[in-house]
């Protein structure tokens, strides 16, 4: 059984990515409302985090190749952008910062999981050549039969979002819940990188990027905790 992806006249990639980001933000806003964060904080944090997510996601994908200037949305760049946005707005508002961080940390896997639908339909970020059950058959630029890496990413990260919701809603110590979530998400993202066609070995460029993005995000959270003097409540 194979999954046949038709070639689109107009690629829905950009629209799906933007819709996924907005859905994730809606989930974060819902959680912040549940945690009774002030409306002003919610509004400006969401705005600043959205700007940071989009800009850093774009910025980290700017590349000058032989074909000219290439632009796109980088998922890892989006994670770093989101962490930066939360960090900056935490410094400005100082209003329940651990709840704001927890809300966005729970929403991030949802954004990533949903945005993989765009990759699946566009044929990018595809898996290694494969022709077994559930193989993805692409046409056009990325034509071929591939391992369903995007479907694996999508399923795993939506499940991670559900785990994140349970952790963040049930645990009293929100910061601990965020650390647990990072500890799960980072190895998972590192492992799924093996399924991609770009992977060349045990520790290639893609995996180094994951480790760097993870280290920057953890660094931002630790710095944020020290500057805002957030105690483990």
């Amino acid at each position, binding site marked *: 059984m194979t999954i046949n992806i038709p070639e689109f006249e107009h690629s829905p990639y950009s629209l799906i990515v933007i819709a996924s980001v907005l859905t994730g933000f809606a989930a974060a806003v819902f959680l912040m409302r549940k945690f009774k964060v002030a409306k002003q904080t919610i509004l400006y944090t969401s705005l600043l985090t959205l700007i940071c997510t989009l800009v850093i996601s774009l910025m980290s994908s*700017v590349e000058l190749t032989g074909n000219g200037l290439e632009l796109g949305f980088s998922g890892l760049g989006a994670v770093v952008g989101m962490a930066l946005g939360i960090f900056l707005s935490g410094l400005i508002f100082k209003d329940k910062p651990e709840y704001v961080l927890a809300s966005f940390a729970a929403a991030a896997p949802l954004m990533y999981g949903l945005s993989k639908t765009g990759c699946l339909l566009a044929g990018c970020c595809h898996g290694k050549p494969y022709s077994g059950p559930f193989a993805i058959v692409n046409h056009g630029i990325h034509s071929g039969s591939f391992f369903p890496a995007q479907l694996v990413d999508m399923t795993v990260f939506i499940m991670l979002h559900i785990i994140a919701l349970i952790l963040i809603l049930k645990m009293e110590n929100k910061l601990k819940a965020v650390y647990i979530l990072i500890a799960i998400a980072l190895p998972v993202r590192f492992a799924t990188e093996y399924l991609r066609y770009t992977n060349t070995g045990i520790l290639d460029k893609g995996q180094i990027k994951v480790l760097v993005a993870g280290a920057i995000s953890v660094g931002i959270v630790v710095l944020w905790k020290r500057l805002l003097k957030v105690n483990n409540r």
Partner: protein
Amino acid sequence: MDNNNNIFNDWQNYQPQQAPDPQQQYQPQYQQPQYQQPVYQQPPYQQQPQYQQPVYQQPVYQQPAYQQPQKPVRPIDLLPPEERAARKKKANTLCIISLILHFSPFVIIGALSGVLESLETGFTGTSTAPAIVQILGYIGGGAYIASWVFMIIARAKYSESVFAKVLMWVYLGILSISIIGTIVLIYMCAILLNGCH
């Protein structure tokens, strides 16, 4: 003995009262009901209505009962004018810095295109140009984020500032137009490319 004689005499004189005749006592007295002949009156609706000339009174316009809602007194309004002026100055400084930072990426994009142009003429084959493009991209992106940060600080700390409020809506407008413009451009390019086939 005298007493006994008296009792005897009383007993002799005693005459029981006659029991009342039940037929005589419980005889109901039926009275003939008096039916009165109904007097039919003319129903009111058949009566000729009496129209009265309505009396129009000149309406008297009064001051409306509700009062113009008064603006709630904000803590900022209670500050002395000097302090308010100082706050306004600080907010304006933040807004001007934000404005400069917001439009600096456009200058950077110009520099980026210059780098691209030089790539075609002289930089081909070197790794300097891609690195410069990435650095300029990071600087442009950083300046754009910083402009939003300064505007949000102005909005949060000096909520009374009209400049900051206008700036926020201008930035949101530019962002929306940019996103819509990019999507339209992508679709237009796709249509044009399809036309080339």
